[in-house]
């Protein structure tokens, strides 16, 4: 066998291995449910807000926004829902908490949102947006004051 053909065979095996690992991980381990964080924590509030957006339950998501502060103050639900309209077809996303800072009545939660949207060959199909959610405490609940719109899905 020629050297180049031996190389080709090795690369063929590498390809099969990559495909095998990718299929196994994606089919078996990839779709495991995420752990729910406590609802009365800033991280838990952000998680439930994002989960509501994921499930397209916008009314529920709107309930996690602080109504009397920041951007939300001047917006009705109808206006807000209009601003959330985005092309969701064939794109998916996931979110991870990078860092959170909690004070007595305010908190910040830094989140990385990875949006999958193929953009030509050899282009990274994953676009990572870093979003810092600012929350404030109202009674025993944490509510998001910024950002109100969901630009990070684009």
């Amino acid at each position, binding site marked *: 066998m020629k*050297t*180049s053909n031996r*190389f*080709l065979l*090795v*690369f063929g095996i*590498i*390809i099969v291995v*990559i*495909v095998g*690992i*990718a*299929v196994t*991980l*994606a*089919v078996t*381990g*990839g*779709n495991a449910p*995420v*752990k729910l*964080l406590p609802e009365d924590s800033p*991280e838990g509030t*952000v*998680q439930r807000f*994002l*989960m509501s957006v*994921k499930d397209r339950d916008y009314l529920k998501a709107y309930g996690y926004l602080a109504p009397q502060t920041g951007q939300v103050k001047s917006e009705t639900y109808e206006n807000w829902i209009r601003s959330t309209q985005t092309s969701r*077809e*064939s*794109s*998916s*996303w*996931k*979110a*991870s*908490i*990078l860092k959170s800072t909690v004070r007595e009545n305010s908190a910040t939660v830094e*989140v*990385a949102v*990875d949006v*999958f949207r*193929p953009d030509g*060959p*050899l282009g*990274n*199909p*994953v676009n*990572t947006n870093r979003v810092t959610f600012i929350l404030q405490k109202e009674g025993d609940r944490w509510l998001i004051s910024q950002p109100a719109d969901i630009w990070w899905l684009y």
Partner: protein
Amino acid sequence: MSTVRRVFFYILTVITLGILTAGLINLLSLSFDTILARFTLAEIGDVKQQLSLGIAMVVIGGPLWFLFWGTIQRHAAKDSDESGSSLRAFFLNFVLFISAFVTVFTFTLLLVWLMAGCRPEQFSPGGTAALIVFAAVWVYHWRVSAGEEHATRVADTVRRWYTYILSAAGLLWLASGIVQLIYTAFIAFPIWDGVIVRDSFWNSGTQNALAWILTGGMVWAFYWFYMAGSDSKSSLRQVYYYLFTILGGAIAGLIALTVTVYRVLFWLMGGDRDVVDYFQFLGWSAPIILVAACIWFYHLRKAEEEAATEHEHQLSALRVHHYLMAFLGLGTLIAGLIILLGIPLDWAINSLNSEIIVTEAGWWNNHLSLGMSMLIVSVPLWLYYWWQINGMADRAGAIERRARSRRIYLYVIIGASVVMLAADLVNIVYQLLNGVLSGSLGLEALRNMKWSLQTVFIALPVLIYHLGIARQDQLLGAETGAAARKVTVLLSDTKSPAVSLLELKLGYKVRRIRYAGQPAYNVPDLSDARAEQLAAEIRAAPVDHVMLVLFEGNVMVLPYEEN
């Protein structure tokens, strides 16, 4: 007339022609409006302004155009070199190019209006006026251009550019019109769920598609079959074949095929099952695959037929096609592998990071479907063409390995891999150093270098493999280049296959001169072994110049020197 003076006259002719054309369109448009009685009393002031401007442009632009163009025409009538000169060719083809495009677009508008039922309120006076005026400009300059004689090589090339650009545009309009029409028909089928209001199939989308099919078809047929029909040897035609139609068709078809496989796989894995009418994408992807395949196949066959007259041309055409397709296949294969490699890397990062708060169900399936679809399309494509290429290299040896298309293919891949590796390594080292120096080396750094890790793992084996091929070629003499002699062959039939065989053995072209005496001698048939022997004799010649005389079964190899 000096060149500067000629340039001056041609530029002023273009400008004054523009003024005259705009004035005529203005006046014609106004006439249509008047015939259709579209004015109200309140608008009469605007109409007067439009009329005044139109008349002024025609009155000033017309005589000036006659003056400048008349001067050029008189000069061309006196000086035979002017007719067919490069500058004149630039001027004529520029005017033809602009007027052809405007005529096509306005003609399509008119067709749409006719198909929509000729409603007076939808009639476009400006568009129709532009159609009439620009069509007249095109016809006039076309007739002038058709009467040109003794065209220079540059003038011929300019003419070819005009022809092939219009031919390509016509083909594009025709193809996109067909795809659009099939898509409109596909979504109009009464099979889709949840449709509560359905427009008639005979809507503006259908009319537009039909108009573009008609216009594009006419333009393509005219420029391809009539204008470019006899131009079988130009380099620009090869560019049109291999870079526009064959490569373009292959890229469009492969993209549509990849998207189709990707979306079918994604659906099979459970993604977007809730999306109503998910499979409507087949309405555009299937016709694109079909139309692109037709364009690819037709032009490939045509290019092969034209190249068949000369063995070396045929081989070059075949070679270029094989390397282009292998390149496309390899590019898609690399892209698919990079995406698939992202899954284990992503999984590893997620395993280290316990703070994932949301994951959409389609996240993993999307990656897997896209990567797999690219592999499904690219692996057979690349393997087929790469196998063919290897077979050619094994059969033809150093000549094939020395071929320019092979060298370009290998060095483009090696160069791209090196650049990709360098960029990836810079990012990886930067993230590592930055992490170490700022004391934050960890998950964040890993996230930031993930894409670089994906690409570096794929680019490295690609580089190693192709470097190995290049090295092997080098050892077999691909880089040394043949010590080319200046070979002249004297024979009665310059198209003899014996010369092509000799060129193949030598690895370079020879000069052919035809014996014009009587009687004509038969050119001997060369066996493969005899051709190889002659090539060896030429290579061993003590001087650079060698003449071969082929007549009646004899071949004389005569090294000579020029004083």
